[in-house]
Protein backbone atom coordinates (compact mmCIF):
# COMPACT_ATOMS: atom_id res chain seq x y z
CA UNK A 1 0.00 0.00 0.00
CA UNK A 2 1.36 3.40 -0.93
CA UNK A 3 -0.07 6.42 0.85
CA UNK A 4 -1.15 9.61 -0.94
CA UNK A 5 -2.85 12.85 0.01
CA UNK A 6 -6.14 12.86 -1.93
CA UNK A 7 -6.76 16.09 -3.84
CA UNK A 8 -10.44 15.82 -4.74
CA UNK A 9 -10.96 19.35 -6.05
CA UNK A 10 -13.99 21.63 -5.66
CA UNK A 11 -15.95 20.43 -8.69
CA UNK A 12 -16.04 16.83 -7.53
CA UNK A 13 -16.57 17.72 -3.89
CA UNK A 14 -19.47 20.06 -4.50
CA UNK A 15 -21.01 19.06 -7.84
CA UNK A 16 -20.04 15.43 -8.50
CA UNK A 17 -19.59 13.78 -5.10
CA UNK A 18 -20.37 10.37 -6.59
CA UNK A 19 -16.94 10.54 -8.26
CA UNK A 20 -15.34 11.03 -4.86
CA UNK A 21 -17.39 8.09 -3.63
CA UNK A 22 -16.15 5.81 -6.40
CA UNK A 23 -12.54 6.94 -5.90
CA UNK A 24 -12.71 6.15 -2.19
CA UNK A 25 -14.11 2.72 -3.04
CA UNK A 26 -11.76 1.76 -5.85
CA UNK A 27 -8.34 3.27 -5.01
CA UNK A 28 -7.73 1.27 -1.79
CA UNK A 29 -8.44 -1.91 -3.78
CA UNK A 30 -5.58 -0.87 -6.08
CA UNK A 31 -3.15 -0.66 -3.14
CA UNK A 32 -3.52 3.11 -2.86
CA UNK A 33 -4.19 4.43 0.60
CA UNK A 34 -5.62 7.94 0.73
CA UNK A 35 -5.32 10.61 3.38
CA UNK A 36 -7.53 13.68 3.68
CA UNK A 37 -5.76 17.03 4.28
CA UNK A 38 -7.20 20.55 4.67
CA UNK A 39 -6.74 21.44 1.01
CA UNK A 40 -8.56 24.41 -0.52
CA UNK A 41 -9.36 25.13 -4.17
CA UNK A 42 -6.15 24.41 -6.09
CA UNK A 43 -6.84 27.40 -7.15
CA UNK A 44 -8.36 27.31 -10.62
CA UNK A 45 -7.58 29.22 -13.83
CA UNK A 46 -10.29 31.81 -13.15
CA UNK A 47 -8.58 32.71 -9.91
CA UNK A 48 -5.24 32.84 -11.73
CA UNK A 49 -6.76 35.23 -14.27
CA UNK A 50 -7.26 37.79 -11.51
CA UNK A 51 -3.90 37.58 -9.77
CA UNK A 52 -1.17 35.05 -10.46
CA UNK A 53 0.74 35.87 -7.30
CA UNK A 54 -2.13 34.85 -5.02
CA UNK A 55 -2.72 31.84 -7.25
CA UNK A 56 0.85 30.76 -6.47
CA UNK A 57 0.47 31.45 -2.76
CA UNK A 58 -2.68 29.35 -2.44
CA UNK A 59 -1.21 26.52 -4.53
CA UNK A 60 1.95 26.69 -2.38
CA UNK A 61 -0.20 26.35 0.74
CA UNK A 62 -1.76 23.16 -0.65
CA UNK A 63 1.63 21.74 -1.61
CA UNK A 64 3.09 22.69 1.78
CA UNK A 65 0.31 20.80 3.59
CA UNK A 66 1.25 17.62 1.74
CA UNK A 67 4.97 18.23 2.35
CA UNK A 68 4.34 18.58 6.05
CA UNK A 69 2.80 15.10 6.12
CA UNK A 70 5.52 13.70 3.89
CA UNK A 71 2.95 12.69 1.27
CA UNK A 72 2.70 12.98 -2.49
CA UNK A 73 -0.58 14.24 -3.92
CA UNK A 74 -2.99 12.09 -5.91
CA UNK A 75 -5.46 14.29 -7.74
CA UNK A 76 -8.87 13.48 -9.21
CA UNK A 77 -8.92 16.56 -11.46
CA UNK A 78 -6.60 17.47 -14.34
CA UNK A 79 -7.14 21.20 -13.73
CA UNK A 80 -6.06 20.92 -10.09
CA UNK A 81 -3.14 18.73 -11.15
CA UNK A 82 -1.96 21.33 -13.62
CA UNK A 83 -2.13 24.14 -11.06
CA UNK A 84 -0.24 22.10 -8.46
CA UNK A 85 2.39 20.83 -10.89
CA UNK A 86 2.98 24.22 -12.46
CA UNK A 87 3.17 26.05 -9.13
CA UNK A 88 5.49 23.36 -7.79
CA UNK A 89 7.77 23.73 -10.81
CA UNK A 90 7.79 27.54 -10.70
CA UNK A 91 8.57 27.62 -6.98
CA UNK A 92 11.24 24.94 -7.10
CA UNK A 93 13.01 26.83 -9.90
CA UNK A 94 12.96 30.36 -8.49
CA UNK A 95 14.69 30.84 -5.14
CA UNK A 96 13.79 34.49 -4.68
CA UNK A 97 10.13 33.98 -5.57
CA UNK A 98 9.98 30.98 -3.24
CA UNK A 99 11.38 33.09 -0.41
CA UNK A 100 8.75 35.78 -0.98
CA UNK A 101 5.91 33.27 -1.18
CA UNK A 102 7.18 31.62 2.00
CA UNK A 103 6.94 34.98 3.79
CA UNK A 104 3.20 34.78 3.15
CA UNK A 105 2.96 31.14 4.21
CA UNK A 106 4.80 31.95 7.45
CA UNK A 107 1.69 33.84 8.55
CA UNK A 108 -0.16 30.54 8.79
CA UNK A 109 2.75 28.48 10.04
CA UNK A 110 3.57 26.70 6.78
CA UNK A 111 6.61 26.51 4.55
CA UNK A 112 7.06 25.38 0.94
CA UNK A 113 10.27 23.39 0.53
CA UNK A 114 9.70 21.65 -2.77
CA UNK A 115 9.73 18.09 -1.47
CA UNK A 116 6.44 16.75 -2.83
CA UNK A 117 4.96 15.88 -6.21
CA UNK A 118 1.39 16.12 -7.46
CA UNK A 119 -0.02 13.76 -10.06
CA UNK A 120 -3.35 12.89 -11.60
CA UNK A 121 -4.43 9.40 -10.56
CA UNK A 122 -4.23 8.19 -14.18
CA UNK A 123 -0.50 8.88 -14.12
CA UNK A 124 -0.15 6.88 -10.92
CA UNK A 125 -2.37 4.02 -12.17
CA UNK A 126 -0.40 3.90 -15.40
CA UNK A 127 2.78 3.45 -13.37
CA UNK A 128 1.31 0.47 -11.54
CA UNK A 129 -0.67 -1.01 -14.38
CA UNK A 130 0.17 -4.58 -13.29
CA UNK A 131 -1.83 -4.12 -10.08
CA UNK A 132 -4.78 -2.83 -12.10
CA UNK A 133 -4.70 -5.87 -14.38
CA UNK A 134 -4.71 -8.26 -11.42
CA UNK A 135 -7.87 -6.73 -9.95
CA UNK A 136 -10.08 -7.01 -13.02
CA UNK A 137 -12.85 -9.57 -12.66
CA UNK A 138 -15.51 -8.35 -15.09
CA UNK A 139 -13.83 -7.07 -18.26
CA UNK A 140 -15.84 -4.55 -20.26
CA UNK A 141 -15.77 -6.63 -23.44
CA UNK A 142 -17.64 -5.05 -26.31
CA UNK A 143 -18.36 -1.72 -24.59
CA UNK A 144 -17.59 0.94 -27.20
CA UNK A 145 -15.97 3.97 -25.64
CA UNK A 146 -15.00 7.37 -27.03
CA UNK A 147 -12.08 8.78 -25.10
CA UNK A 148 -12.06 12.45 -24.26
CA UNK A 149 -8.69 13.12 -22.61
CA UNK A 150 -9.43 16.82 -22.27
CA UNK A 151 -6.77 19.50 -22.03
CA UNK A 152 -4.98 19.61 -18.70
CA UNK A 153 -4.14 15.98 -18.30
CA UNK A 154 -1.82 16.61 -21.25
CA UNK A 155 -1.01 20.29 -21.66
CA UNK A 156 1.29 22.04 -21.41
CA UNK A 157 3.27 18.86 -22.04
CA UNK A 158 6.48 20.23 -20.48
CA UNK A 159 4.58 20.59 -17.21
CA UNK A 160 2.24 17.61 -17.30
CA UNK A 161 4.87 15.22 -18.74
CA UNK A 162 2.36 12.42 -19.26
CA UNK A 163 1.39 11.91 -22.86
CA UNK A 164 1.57 13.35 -26.36
CA UNK A 165 -1.19 16.01 -26.51
CA UNK A 166 -1.62 15.70 -30.27
CA UNK A 167 -1.87 11.90 -30.28
CA UNK A 168 -2.62 10.79 -26.74
CA UNK A 169 -2.49 7.02 -26.13
CA UNK A 170 -2.09 6.48 -22.36
CA UNK A 171 -5.77 6.68 -21.45
CA UNK A 172 -6.41 4.35 -24.34
CA UNK A 173 -3.99 1.82 -22.85
CA UNK A 174 -5.68 2.13 -19.48
CA UNK A 175 -9.08 1.43 -21.03
CA UNK A 176 -7.87 -1.49 -23.07
CA UNK A 177 -6.65 -2.99 -19.76
CA UNK A 178 -10.29 -2.98 -18.63
CA UNK A 179 -11.36 -4.83 -21.77
CA UNK A 180 -13.21 -1.87 -23.33
CA UNK A 181 -13.26 -1.19 -27.08
CA UNK A 182 -11.87 2.18 -28.14
CA UNK A 183 -13.76 4.14 -30.77
CA UNK A 184 -11.65 6.69 -32.59
CA UNK A 185 -13.53 9.82 -33.65
CA UNK A 186 -12.57 12.98 -35.53
CA UNK A 187 -13.18 15.44 -32.68
CA UNK A 188 -11.22 13.46 -30.09
CA UNK A 189 -8.89 16.32 -29.14
CA UNK A 190 -11.45 19.14 -29.23
CA UNK A 191 -11.67 20.91 -25.85
CA UNK A 192 -15.06 20.36 -24.15
CA UNK A 193 -15.60 24.13 -23.82
CA UNK A 194 -16.67 23.95 -20.19
CA UNK A 195 -15.67 27.43 -19.04
CA UNK A 196 -17.70 29.05 -21.82
CA UNK A 197 -20.90 27.35 -20.73
CA UNK A 198 -21.74 29.94 -18.08
CA UNK A 199 -20.93 33.02 -20.15
CA UNK A 200 -21.47 31.97 -23.79
CA UNK A 201 -23.94 29.12 -23.78
CA UNK A 202 -24.47 29.15 -27.55
CA UNK A 203 -20.78 28.63 -28.31
CA UNK A 204 -20.40 25.98 -25.62
CA UNK A 205 -23.47 24.13 -26.90
CA UNK A 206 -22.10 23.97 -30.44
CA UNK A 207 -18.84 22.53 -29.14
CA UNK A 208 -20.78 19.87 -27.21
CA UNK A 209 -22.92 19.02 -30.23
CA UNK A 210 -19.89 18.55 -32.49
CA UNK A 211 -18.17 16.40 -29.92
CA UNK A 212 -21.22 14.18 -29.28
CA UNK A 213 -22.12 13.93 -32.95
CA UNK A 214 -18.59 12.96 -33.92
CA UNK A 215 -18.33 10.22 -31.27
CA UNK A 216 -21.87 8.95 -31.85
CA UNK A 217 -21.49 8.67 -35.62
CA UNK A 218 -18.20 6.82 -35.13
CA UNK A 219 -20.15 4.19 -33.18
CA UNK A 220 -19.39 5.03 -29.54
CA UNK A 221 -21.82 4.06 -26.79
CA UNK A 222 -20.36 6.35 -24.12
CA UNK A 223 -17.64 8.89 -23.38
CA UNK A 224 -14.90 8.28 -20.89
CA UNK A 225 -13.22 11.28 -19.27
CA UNK A 226 -10.51 11.89 -16.66
CA UNK A 227 -11.89 15.27 -15.65
CA UNK A 228 -14.86 16.54 -13.60
CA UNK A 229 -15.29 19.68 -15.71
CA UNK A 230 -15.41 17.64 -18.92
CA UNK A 231 -17.82 15.30 -17.12
CA UNK A 232 -20.23 18.11 -16.31
CA UNK A 233 -19.97 19.59 -19.77
CA UNK A 234 -20.58 16.29 -21.56
CA UNK A 235 -23.21 15.08 -19.08
CA UNK A 236 -25.50 17.73 -17.63
CA UNK A 237 -24.66 20.37 -20.22
CA UNK A 238 -25.08 17.88 -23.07
CA UNK A 239 -28.79 17.79 -22.26
CA UNK A 240 -28.98 21.59 -22.37
CA UNK A 241 -27.15 21.68 -25.71
CA UNK A 242 -29.41 18.94 -27.02
CA UNK A 243 -32.50 20.96 -26.13
CA UNK A 244 -31.11 24.18 -27.60
CA UNK A 245 -29.75 22.75 -30.83
CA UNK A 246 -32.27 19.95 -31.19
CA UNK A 247 -29.98 17.07 -32.02
CA UNK A 248 -31.26 13.51 -31.76
CA UNK A 249 -28.49 11.38 -30.31
CA UNK A 250 -26.97 11.37 -26.84
CA UNK A 251 -24.08 9.62 -25.10
CA UNK A 252 -23.66 8.94 -21.39
CA UNK A 253 -20.36 9.78 -19.72
CA UNK A 254 -18.11 7.77 -17.43
CA UNK A 255 -15.32 9.08 -15.27
CA UNK A 256 -12.42 6.66 -15.69
CA UNK A 257 -12.60 5.27 -12.15
CA UNK A 258 -16.27 4.37 -12.65
CA UNK A 259 -15.20 2.03 -15.43
CA UNK A 260 -12.45 0.62 -13.23
CA UNK A 261 -15.13 -0.05 -10.62
CA UNK A 262 -17.35 -1.85 -13.13
CA UNK A 263 -14.42 -3.95 -14.33
CA UNK A 264 -13.67 -4.85 -10.71
CA UNK A 265 -17.17 -6.23 -10.26
CA UNK A 266 -19.12 -3.31 -8.82
CA UNK A 267 -22.53 -2.67 -10.41
CA UNK A 268 -23.81 0.48 -12.08
CA UNK A 269 -25.39 1.74 -8.89
CA UNK A 270 -22.24 1.14 -6.85
CA UNK A 271 -20.10 3.19 -9.24
CA UNK A 272 -22.58 6.08 -9.13
CA UNK A 273 -23.73 5.75 -12.75
CA UNK A 274 -27.27 6.82 -11.87
CA UNK A 275 -25.99 10.16 -10.60
CA UNK A 276 -25.19 11.03 -14.22
CA UNK A 277 -27.88 12.86 -16.18
CA UNK A 278 -27.46 11.23 -19.59
CA UNK A 279 -28.59 7.62 -19.60
CA UNK A 280 -28.53 4.85 -22.15
CA UNK A 281 -30.85 1.91 -21.37
CA UNK A 282 -29.22 -0.20 -24.12
CA UNK A 283 -25.76 0.31 -22.68
CA UNK A 284 -27.03 -0.37 -19.17
CA UNK A 285 -28.45 -3.70 -20.37
CA UNK A 286 -25.20 -4.53 -22.10
CA UNK A 287 -23.19 -3.88 -18.95
CA UNK A 288 -25.60 -5.93 -16.84
CA UNK A 289 -25.42 -8.84 -19.27
CA UNK A 290 -21.59 -8.77 -19.10
CA UNK A 291 -21.93 -9.36 -15.42
CA UNK A 292 -24.45 -12.18 -15.89
CA UNK A 293 -22.09 -13.93 -18.28
CA UNK A 294 -19.35 -13.61 -15.72
CA UNK A 295 -21.50 -15.28 -13.07
CA UNK A 296 -22.33 -18.15 -15.45
CA UNK A 297 -18.65 -18.63 -16.29
CA UNK A 298 -17.74 -19.00 -12.63
Amino acid at each position, binding site marked *: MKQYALFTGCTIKAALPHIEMVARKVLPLLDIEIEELAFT*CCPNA*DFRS*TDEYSWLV*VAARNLALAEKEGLEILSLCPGCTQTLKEANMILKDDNSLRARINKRLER*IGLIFKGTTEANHHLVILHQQIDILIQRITTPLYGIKLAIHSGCHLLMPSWIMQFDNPERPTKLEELIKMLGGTIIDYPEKTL*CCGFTLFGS*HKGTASRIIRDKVESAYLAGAEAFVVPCPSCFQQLDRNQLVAKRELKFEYQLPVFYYLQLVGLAMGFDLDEVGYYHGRVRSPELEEKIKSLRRKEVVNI
Partner: protein
Amino acid sequence: MISINTELRRKILEHNEDIKKCYQCSTCSASCPVLRYDPDFNPRILIIKALYGSEDTLKSKEFWKCLSCDRCNERCPQGVNPYNVLLKLKNFLFSQNLAPKERIDARELIIATGFSYPISSAVNRKRESIELEALESIGEELKKIVGIEGAE
Protein backbone atom coordinates in the same frame (compact mmCIF):
# COMPACT_ATOMS: atom_id res chain seq x y z
CA MET B 1 -5.53 55.36 -34.61
CA ILE B 2 -3.86 53.12 -32.03
CA SER B 3 -3.30 54.61 -28.61
CA ILE B 4 -0.57 53.00 -26.55
CA ASN B 5 -0.69 52.37 -22.82
CA THR B 6 2.96 52.32 -21.77
CA GLU B 7 2.27 50.95 -18.32
CA LEU B 8 0.38 48.03 -19.83
CA ARG B 9 3.21 47.43 -22.29
CA ARG B 10 5.79 47.48 -19.53
CA LYS B 11 3.73 45.11 -17.36
CA ILE B 12 3.27 42.67 -20.19
CA LEU B 13 6.94 42.65 -21.13
CA GLU B 14 8.14 42.57 -17.52
CA HIS B 15 8.01 38.82 -16.99
CA ASN B 16 7.31 37.93 -20.57
CA GLU B 17 10.12 38.88 -22.90
CA ASP B 18 9.17 35.95 -25.13
CA ILE B 19 6.18 37.82 -26.50
CA LYS B 20 8.63 39.82 -28.66
CA LYS B 21 9.40 36.62 -30.53
CA CYS B 22 5.86 36.41 -31.93
CA TYR B 23 6.10 36.42 -35.73
CA GLN B 24 2.34 36.46 -36.23
CA CYS B 25 2.17 33.03 -37.84
CA SER B 26 -1.34 32.40 -36.48
CA THR B 27 -0.62 28.87 -35.26
CA CYS B 28 -2.25 29.85 -31.96
CA SER B 29 -5.37 31.10 -33.72
CA ALA B 30 -5.59 28.06 -35.95
CA SER B 31 -5.39 25.85 -32.85
CA CYS B 32 -7.82 27.78 -30.69
CA PRO B 33 -11.15 26.08 -29.99
CA VAL B 34 -12.84 29.38 -29.14
CA LEU B 35 -11.89 31.01 -32.43
CA ARG B 36 -13.17 28.00 -34.33
CA TYR B 37 -16.65 28.77 -33.00
CA ASP B 38 -16.39 32.50 -32.42
CA PRO B 39 -14.06 34.38 -34.80
CA ASP B 40 -14.31 37.57 -32.69
CA PHE B 41 -11.84 35.90 -30.37
CA ASN B 42 -8.41 35.79 -32.01
CA PRO B 43 -5.28 35.09 -29.93
CA ARG B 44 -2.86 36.21 -32.66
CA ILE B 45 -4.50 39.64 -32.81
CA LEU B 46 -4.69 39.89 -29.04
CA ILE B 47 -0.96 39.13 -28.89
CA ILE B 48 0.05 41.86 -31.34
CA LYS B 49 -2.16 44.37 -29.56
CA ALA B 50 -0.70 43.34 -26.23
CA LEU B 51 2.81 43.71 -27.60
CA TYR B 52 2.04 47.29 -28.56
CA GLY B 53 0.27 47.92 -25.27
CA SER B 54 -2.78 49.01 -27.26
CA GLU B 55 -5.52 50.70 -25.22
CA ASP B 56 -7.89 48.85 -27.44
CA THR B 57 -6.98 45.63 -25.71
CA LEU B 58 -8.13 46.95 -22.39
CA LYS B 59 -11.55 47.77 -23.71
CA SER B 60 -11.97 44.42 -25.38
CA LYS B 61 -14.00 41.86 -23.49
CA GLU B 62 -12.82 39.20 -25.88
CA PHE B 63 -9.98 37.64 -23.98
CA TRP B 64 -12.20 36.64 -21.07
CA LYS B 65 -13.57 34.03 -23.50
CA CYS B 66 -10.30 32.05 -23.42
CA LEU B 67 -10.93 28.47 -22.23
CA SER B 68 -7.47 28.14 -20.65
CA CYS B 69 -7.01 25.00 -22.73
CA ASP B 70 -3.27 25.56 -23.26
CA ARG B 71 -3.33 24.36 -26.89
CA CYS B 72 -1.78 27.64 -28.11
CA ASN B 73 1.05 27.33 -25.57
CA GLU B 74 1.61 23.79 -26.73
CA ARG B 75 1.80 24.65 -30.42
CA CYS B 76 3.34 28.13 -30.67
CA PRO B 77 6.59 27.61 -32.60
CA GLN B 78 8.20 30.64 -30.93
CA GLY B 79 7.59 29.81 -27.28
CA VAL B 80 5.47 32.92 -26.79
CA ASN B 81 2.99 31.13 -24.50
CA PRO B 82 0.00 33.11 -25.76
CA TYR B 83 -2.24 31.81 -22.97
CA ASN B 84 0.13 33.21 -20.36
CA VAL B 85 0.18 36.56 -22.17
CA LEU B 86 -3.62 36.64 -21.92
CA LEU B 87 -3.30 35.84 -18.21
CA LYS B 88 -0.98 38.84 -17.76
CA LEU B 89 -3.50 41.06 -19.50
CA LYS B 90 -6.30 39.84 -17.27
CA ASN B 91 -4.16 40.33 -14.17
CA PHE B 92 -3.47 43.88 -15.28
CA LEU B 93 -7.18 44.54 -15.74
CA PHE B 94 -7.94 43.09 -12.31
CA SER B 95 -5.33 45.36 -10.73
CA GLN B 96 -7.03 48.34 -12.40
CA ASN B 97 -10.48 47.25 -11.17
CA LEU B 98 -11.51 46.40 -14.71
CA ALA B 99 -12.12 42.65 -14.35
CA PRO B 100 -15.70 41.40 -14.88
CA LYS B 101 -17.77 41.17 -11.75
CA GLU B 102 -18.20 37.38 -12.09
CA ARG B 103 -14.45 36.87 -11.89
CA ILE B 104 -14.13 39.06 -8.83
CA ASP B 105 -17.05 37.30 -7.12
CA ALA B 106 -15.58 33.89 -7.98
CA ARG B 107 -12.26 34.96 -6.47
CA GLU B 108 -13.91 36.27 -3.32
CA LEU B 109 -15.82 33.03 -2.86
CA ILE B 110 -12.58 31.03 -2.89
CA ILE B 111 -10.89 33.41 -0.48
CA ALA B 112 -13.85 33.37 1.90
CA THR B 113 -14.58 29.63 1.94
CA GLY B 114 -11.66 27.83 0.29
CA PHE B 115 -13.98 26.42 -2.38
CA SER B 116 -14.86 27.58 -5.87
CA TYR B 117 -18.44 26.32 -5.43
CA PRO B 118 -20.87 27.64 -2.84
CA ILE B 119 -21.23 25.09 -0.04
CA SER B 120 -24.99 24.92 0.27
CA SER B 121 -27.00 22.63 2.50
CA ALA B 122 -28.18 20.88 -0.69
CA VAL B 123 -24.55 20.05 -1.53
CA ASN B 124 -23.95 18.64 1.92
CA ARG B 125 -27.21 16.67 1.94
CA LYS B 126 -26.18 15.05 -1.31
CA ARG B 127 -22.72 14.24 0.06
CA GLU B 128 -24.14 12.76 3.23
CA SER B 129 -26.63 10.67 1.27
CA ILE B 130 -23.70 8.81 -0.27
CA GLU B 131 -21.78 8.61 2.99
CA LEU B 132 -19.29 11.40 2.38
CA GLU B 133 -18.43 13.98 5.00
CA ALA B 134 -20.08 17.39 4.78
CA LEU B 135 -17.90 20.24 3.50
CA GLU B 136 -16.86 23.01 5.84
CA SER B 137 -15.61 26.48 4.99
CA ILE B 138 -11.89 26.97 5.58
CA GLY B 139 -12.59 30.28 7.32
CA GLU B 140 -10.03 33.06 7.61
CA GLU B 141 -6.94 31.18 6.53
CA LEU B 142 -6.74 32.25 2.89
CA LYS B 143 -7.53 35.87 3.77
CA LYS B 144 -4.25 35.97 5.66
CA ILE B 145 -2.12 35.01 2.66
CA VAL B 146 -3.71 36.31 -0.56
CA GLY B 147 -3.30 39.75 -2.15
CA ILE B 148 -1.48 41.04 -5.21
CA GLU B 149 2.31 41.06 -5.18
CA GLY B 150 3.89 43.86 -3.21
CA ALA B 151 0.66 44.76 -1.41
CA GLU B 152 2.01 43.30 1.87
